[in-house]
């Protein structure tokens, strides 16, 4: 496939930088696609983490007597426990609430002069459908202003944001591939113009268009593979580095939110296929460019 060529395409100045441009575009693709794959994992992680949970807020007035407060809490807990689909309910301790609020209000969150509601973490079967509005109404009959939150709005907003990031990464990849294809078109057209004399001779000797196109596409495939492999190499190093850096930073700042940003084996396989995709794109782009140009020759 990369054998003898009648056209001295490898000597073209315009072709010399093609592997580098393809390499750079592949590098951008690797980063963008790795980001999209990581975002996908994060979204799944969040979805699974919150799918089986509810949070109930019981805002007891500060002036409420302790006995009355305990009575209302017991009533609320009994109501929650009796709700079909609920598998457990736990009243969060002050320390647990402080840990949840710490990222926003600092380590002394519970010491602040701010009334904090009693929080109940509720677990449920993931396949259970709970009437949240009905539960809220019943709870408010026991504790006025009680709230039930299944995190649906938050999860929906967060997933929407992550999907936007994925779409952005996809668009960047498409742009990088389009830029690579445009470069191949430019280089191929330059090659056609540079070697017009030779192409005319080869044509007049009886070479069909595909014979000439084969030489350009072999060159583009070679440059595509070379640039693709180099781009993948640098991209992989960058992805590994960024993944470790983010994981380290998050772990240091907030161990509770730590998440494994390393790509899964199948995701590496996806990235590993990129040089082939880029090389084939370059090859078919070159072929199409040559065939279209030669069709205008007599």
């Amino acid at each position, binding site marked *: 496939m990369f054998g*003898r060529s*009648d056209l*001295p395409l490898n*000597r073209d100045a315009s072709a010399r930088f093609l592997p580098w441009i393809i390499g750079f575009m592949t590098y951008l693709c690797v980063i963008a696609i790795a980001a999209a794959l990581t975002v996908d994992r994060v979204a799944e992680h969040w979805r699974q983490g919150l799918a089986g949970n509810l949070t109930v807020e019981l805002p007891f007035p500060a002036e409420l007597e302790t006995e009355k407060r305990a009575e209302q809490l017991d009533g609320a807990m009994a109501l929650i426990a009796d709700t079909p689909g609920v598998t457990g309910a736990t009243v969060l301790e002050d320390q647990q609430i402080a840990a949840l609020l710490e990222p926003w209000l600092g380590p002394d969150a519970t010491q602040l002069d701010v009334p904090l509601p009693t929080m109940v973490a509720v677990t449920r079967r993931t396949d259970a459908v709970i009437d949240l509005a009905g539960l809220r109404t019943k709870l408010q009959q026991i504790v006025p202003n009680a709230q039930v939150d299944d995190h649906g709005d938050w999860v929906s907003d967060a997933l929407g944001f992550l999907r936007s990031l994925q779409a952005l990464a996809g668009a960047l990849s498409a742009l990088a591939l389009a830029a690579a294809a445009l470069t191949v078109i430019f280089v191929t057209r330059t090659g056609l113009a540079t070697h017009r*004399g*030779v192409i*005319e*001779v*080869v*044509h*007049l*000797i*009886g*070479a*069909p*268009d595909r*014979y000439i196109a084969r030489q350009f596409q072999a060159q583009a495939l070679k440059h595509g593979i070379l640039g693709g492999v180099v781009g993948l190499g640098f991209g992989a190093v960058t992805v590994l580095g960024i993944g470790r850096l983010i994981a380290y930073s998050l772990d240091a700042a907030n161990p509770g939110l730590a998440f494994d940003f390393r790509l899964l084996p199948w995701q590496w396989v996806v990235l590993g296929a990129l040089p082939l995709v880029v090389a084939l794109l370059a090859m078919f782009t070159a072929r199409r460019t040559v065939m279209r140009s030669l*069709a205008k020759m*007599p």
Partner: protein
Amino acid sequence: MILFDGVAVQYSAGPPILHDVTFTLAPGSFHFLVGRSGAGKSSMLKVMYLGLRPTRGTVSLFGRDVASLNRAEMPALRRRVGVVFQDFRLIEHLSTFDNVALPLRIAGVREAEIKKHVTELLAWVGLKDHLDALPPTLSGGQQQRVSIARAVIARPSLLLADEPTGNVDDVIGLRLMYLFEELNRLGTTVVIATHNDTLVSRFSHRQLRIEESSIRVFDPRPMTAYPSPPTPATTAAQGASPARRPGAA
């Protein structure tokens, strides 16, 4: 083999190079294409090797009207035509061997056969010591011989040569002419464009003379020299005057 019927060639808005050219060339014939410099010999050869479409008229090659050919059909037709270009048009980055091997490679011939035939032919034209030489390192005469070898290596049905002996000495020129005659004896139709009157007079082949943008066929041999009675298709090429289209002045 070749039929021109009312063919005209004109570049842009310039004067017509060829005007109302009508003739036929029989398969296996040998013709000199003569005329003063700039008379239109090269343009006529260009039309013959499908490098130029005529402005008007009909050209038929190997029984096919070239105007009706689509692009996909042209390469196969071109492979049946060997061309010796006036300016050689060798591919400069390819060796002598690879230049001559090109038509065979395009035709898909096996490398072992290519090596055998190309080496043999290059030895015949006196270039066996220059197989790996690049064209720019060869003299004009050597380049011309490489060009001729490339044109004949695939045993074309039609050989078109534009001033093929213009850059070689008389001995080599004669040797090349014998090569063309040998190919002609093997069935190749040969058309040689030249303004070398000495060369033309030395060989008694028919002549296509371009005069005043039109063509006149001249046969220096006596009529009895014809091997067989002329057929309608070859009348013009074998007669002393070009074929007249019905209604032509």
